[in-house]
C-alpha cells in the first residue's frame, strides 16, 4: 500500500519558500501554490466529488495555509502538513453543510444511492475512475480517497473523520464494491 505519504511527493526547495512565505513573502507563497496546487486540488475535488467545489476548497486551503504557515514548525514535510491541512479544510467545510451533509454522510452506510447530491438514483454509464469516485456516497468517497488514493491509514482516517477504524474499513470495502459495479457497466 502506498504510504500516507503519497503526500510526500516532496518537491525539493520548499523549505526556502516556506520560510519566506511564513515571513509574509507572497511571491514565495505563490511558488508554493504553483508547486502544490494540483495535488491539493485533486484531493479537494475527489473528496468533495465536484470540480467546482474542489476549486473553491483549494482556494480555502491555501488561504488557510497562508494564515497557519507561521505555525509550521517543520516537524514533517511541508507537503505532508499541507495535505493534512487540506483534508481538515475539506472535512470542516462538510460540517458546515448542515442538513445536506447529514443526508450523505456516515449515515449513508447501507444506502445505495449513487447520486451524492441527494437526487434520484441514477445509472452510471461507462466512466473513468475519477467520475465513478465522484458518484460514490459521501462517506464512502471520503474514505476511499483518503485510503486508496491518498494513502492514509484507517486509524488516521478514523481520527480525521470522527469515525471508528472499523467504520473506515467498512466504508472502504463498500466503496470498492460500488466502484467495481460502476466500472463494469
Amino acid at each position, binding site marked *: *500500500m*502506498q504510504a500516507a505519504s*503519497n503526500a510526500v511527493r516532496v518537491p525539493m526547495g520548499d523549505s526556502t519558500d516556506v520560510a519566506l512565505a511564513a*515571513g*509574509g513573502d*507572497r511571491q514565495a*507563497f*505563490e511558488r508554493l*501554490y*504553483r508547486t502544490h*496546487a*494540483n*495535488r491539493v*486540488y*485533486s484531493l479537494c*475535488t*475527489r473528496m*468533495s466529488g465536484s*470540480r467546482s*467545489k*474542489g*476549486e*473553491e*476548497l*483549494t*482556494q*480555502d486551503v*491555501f*488561504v*488557510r495555509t*497562508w*494564515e497557519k*504557515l*507561521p505555525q509550521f514548525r517543520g516537524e514533517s514535510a511541508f507537503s505532508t502538513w499541507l495535505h493534512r491541512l487540506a483534508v481538515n*479544510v475539506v472535512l*470542516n*467545510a*462538510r460540517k*458546515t*453543510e448542515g442538513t445536506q451533509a447529514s443526508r450523505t454522510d456516515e449515515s449513508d452506510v447501507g444506502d445505495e444511492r449513487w447520486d451524492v447530491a441527494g437526487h434520484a438514483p441514477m445509472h452510471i454509464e461507462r466512466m473513468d*475512475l*475519477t467520475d465513478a*469516485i465522484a458518484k460514490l456516497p459521501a462517506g464512502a468517497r471520503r474514505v*476511499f480517497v483518503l485510503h*486508496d*488514493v491518498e*494513502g492514509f491509514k484507517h486509524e488516521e482516517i478514523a481520527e480525521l473523520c470522527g469515525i471508528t477504524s472499523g467504520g473506515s*474499513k*467498512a466504508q*472502504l*470495502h463498500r466503496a*470498492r*464494491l460500488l*466502484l*467495481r459495479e460502476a*466500472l*463494469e457497466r
Partner: protein
Amino acid sequence: MTNSNMTCEAFDAALPDYLEGTLDVSMRASVEMHLRECVRCAGLVRDLENIREEAAAMPDLVPSKDLWTGIEARIAAPVIPLTARPERQKRFAPAWMGIAAAALVVSTAGITYTLTSRSLTKPDSRPVAAAPTGETQPPLDTGSATQPSNAIAAASTGGSGTLPETRRPSGQRGGIPASLASQPQNEPSHSDAVYGKEIEMLQRVVSERKTQLDSSTVAIIEKNLQIIDAAIAQSRAALAKDPASMLLSDQLTHALDKKVELLRTAALLPSST
C-alpha cells in the same frame, strides 16, 4: 459456489480483512483455497485489487482556471494597523454590545450636548478623533466653531493613504491614533485614509465573494453592516455637533473597528459547499 472449506458468503465476509492483509494464517489459507476454486470470487478479488492499484496511481487533476488570483485577493485583504485596545474595550466582547453601547452613547451625548452647549464657555479646539490622553473624561466644549474630522467623514467611503498591511503579518492595533490630536481638523488624517482604504478594499473582496457564500450568511452580514453603518452615521452626526468629544470619537472608532472586523471576517469565510 462452494468448496469444502468455505462458502462464497463466508468468503465475502472475510474479503475486507483479506485485502487488508489482516487475516490470521488459517483463515487466509481457507480464503486462498476458495479463490483457487471459485471463478466468481477470484474475479472479485482481481477487480478490487485493480481498483486499488489504479486509485493509487491516479494522476493529479488540474483546475480549470488559475486559482491564484482569488487566493491572492483574499490573502491580500488589508488589515488596518491596530494597536492594543484599551483594556476597558475588551469587556465588549460581543459585537452587538459595543454597537448598542455606541448608539446609546451617541444618542445621550447628543441630547446632553444640546442642553448644555449654550451655557459653556468656548473651549480650545480639541481635535475630533483625539485618542485618549490619560484623562478619564474630556472637558465638554461647545465645538461650535469646529468641524468633524474629514477622517471620520471619509472613513467608510475610502480615501487616500498608504495601503494597509496584508492581514497575516499583524501590525499595531489601535483606533484613531493620538497623533491625530495635534492635527488640524480640516486635514484628512492618515488613520482616516487607512480606515477608508481598508473598508473599501474589504468591501470589494466581500462583494466578489458573495456568490461563494451561503445566501443566509450573506444576508446576515449585510444586515449587520447596516446596523454598524447606522451606528457610524449616528456617531458622525453627534460628532458634527460636538467635535471635541473624546467619548463620541471613541465610539465612532469602535464602530469603525467593528465594521472592519465584520468585513474581514466575511472576506475570510470559507466558501459554502
